[in-house]
């Protein structure tokens, strides 16, 4: 994938992903409990399953992290025994890939809420493509399909976009993110100061 990721980056990404893997696993029951109520209200909370990619990328800010995080979260969810079984793995790959592509399109240089939301939409589109193959969703009545797609995309933006962004902002205040971000040039320059005034 990417040669630039150091062991620290990978391990931190995977551990963040596993935290979300556990959340994903807990989110499952909630999802299928709201699902039978019909009218796709469940789709509003689907975006939770895209959060690992956006959160991990916002924290580490490197190429490959979004993809790795989503795959790792899916693997974690799978390996602790997901009731969705194997499909979570393939969904994870596709969702991670689409989020990664969005971040790549901005050359991994933008970390604002717009780009994060776009990445969330990317993941949503990825998942919808999978659903076309798996769930025959094109065979839903048109009004129902529109509701389904609309809710999923809105939910993704709210959860994996905006909430992820706010969450990482809050996390940055704790100072823990500085562990995984590179030092600034000014810090290196400070080493050469002769005497302190």
């Amino acid at each position: 994938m990417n040669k630039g990721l150091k062991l620290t980056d990978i391990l931190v990404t995977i551990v963040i992903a596993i935290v979300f893997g556990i959340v994903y696993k807990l989110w499952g029951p909630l999802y299928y409990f709201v699902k039978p109520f019909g009218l796709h209200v469940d789709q509003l909370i689907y975006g939770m399953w895209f959060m690992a990619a956006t959160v991990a990328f916002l924290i580490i800010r490197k190429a490959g992290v979004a993809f790795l995080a989503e795959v790792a979260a899916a693997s974690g969810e799978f390996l602790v025994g997901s009731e969705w079984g194997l499909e979570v793995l393939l969904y994870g790959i596709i969702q991670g890939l689409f989020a990664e592509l969005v971040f790549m399109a901005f050359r991994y240089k933008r970390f604002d809420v717009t780009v994060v939301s776009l990445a969330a939409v990317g993941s949503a589109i990825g998942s919808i493509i999978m659903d076309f193959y798996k769930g025959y969703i094109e065979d839903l009545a048109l009004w129902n399909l529109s509701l389904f797609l609309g809710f999923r995309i809105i939910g993704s933006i709210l959860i994996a976009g905006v909430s992820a962004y706010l969450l990482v902002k809050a996390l940055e205040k704790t100072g823990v993110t500085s562990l995984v971000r590179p030092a600034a040039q000014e810090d290196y320059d400070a080493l050469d100061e002769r005497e302190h005034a």
Partner: protein
Amino acid sequence: MLNVEKLRLKFPGDSDLLFKDLSLHIEKGEKVLLLGPSGCGKSTLLQVLSGIIPQSVEVPMKAESIEKPASWGYVFQDPDSQFCMPYVDEEIAFVLENQSVPREEMRPRIRQLLKAVGLELDDIHTNIHTLSGGMKQRLAIASVLALEPEVLFLDEPTALLDPQGTEDIWHTVKAISEHKTLVIVEHKLEHVLDLINRIVLFNGEGEIIADGPKQQILSQHKDTMRAQGIWYPGVWEDYKPSEKLEASSEPIIRLEQFKGLRQKESKIHVPQTTVYKGEWIAVTGDNGAGKSTLLHALMKFIKTTGTYEIYGNPVKKLPNDLTFVFQNPEFQFVTNSVYEEIAYGLRLEKRSQQEVDAKVEELLERFQLTSFRKHHPYQLSMGQKRRLSVAASIVCNQPILLLDEPTFGQDSKNTFALLEMLRDYQKEGSTILMVTHDEQVVEHFATRVWKIENGLLAEDRLVQTREREPAMECL
């Protein structure tokens, strides 16, 4: 052997350099202890000497010259975050794999390494999660020995261990380090003094203020060490806390055939006891005996059976009269600033802004946090975090305070400060129940001891007078 000349180092975001032209030389076979107050950079220096900085951790640094050991091993502080594999054998195998040791040689090597650190398990395929903290740290030493290091770096390996674990670790280190160079960071001196011969003393600005044979440093710089919060032998005698308080005779908690259940199994059993207002009860016992479980049962975090009354009223759910301070203060923080953290409980009770202000200011003052009011709770030092978590817990004047090892891993300065603050709270009529491993805390502060053995409150005695122990002989 180990040498660094004119080291400069700066953490990103800090305004000042941590080290400015620091030089240190260590000869082969020396056993050196780095001492200094929290935050003086001892651990950072250890990482520079080993090369972890800048190889694995990017920190801006430069040095005129630096000589690193050819082979070294590093034992870290936290037993839970230095392993990457789930089982004992797999963890050591990981280190052997890193050095391309042939597979056939691995099992015998693993056995031999475990033996060297006194960790003789029936089955080497034991889950690390089931080991005690002390055993985990011995495993950490074993896996480091797999590197056959000439130099061993030990970064407060016993900071998170109980007294027994601490003793075992230093015993183990002594046994394996005869021909090795040791560089140790530690602030609990009791056992480590036996095995070192040189002390390097730092000040809070990251400068070396003394360097020499241990006897000399210990006798000449005792005052500095006390001020820095180092646990040197005899620190309690020098501290001389004020007299203990007397409890009243007003009963507040009554327990009878009280049991705390986890997965329907009784994990703690209290046959019968009464807690009186103003008591300071120390809950002691071995690891895993059920000390924390007792507190959890009192808080109703877990299911309980039997009689449990506060002021004569049976307790059904999380009692409002009790508050709890967790071992890791960060888990309790919910806001973005020290001020808001303390104010949180009051705001939930919808108190007026004036009332909130007055109360928070008072607590900030009392817990020495006034100048940090705008800081993010996570950005405080460990000692400050502990004080903040106590302050935030008692803001609503709960009469009973439960604490789970609040002085754990703290330097002496912070420990004494926190204990005194608790005593002030006790003076106002509050009751304290505190899990602790520290005999000295029991002797000097507690009015009563509950000893837990195998999930049973086995001993319940009053600690009336403070017994004076002779100063420890270590030199």
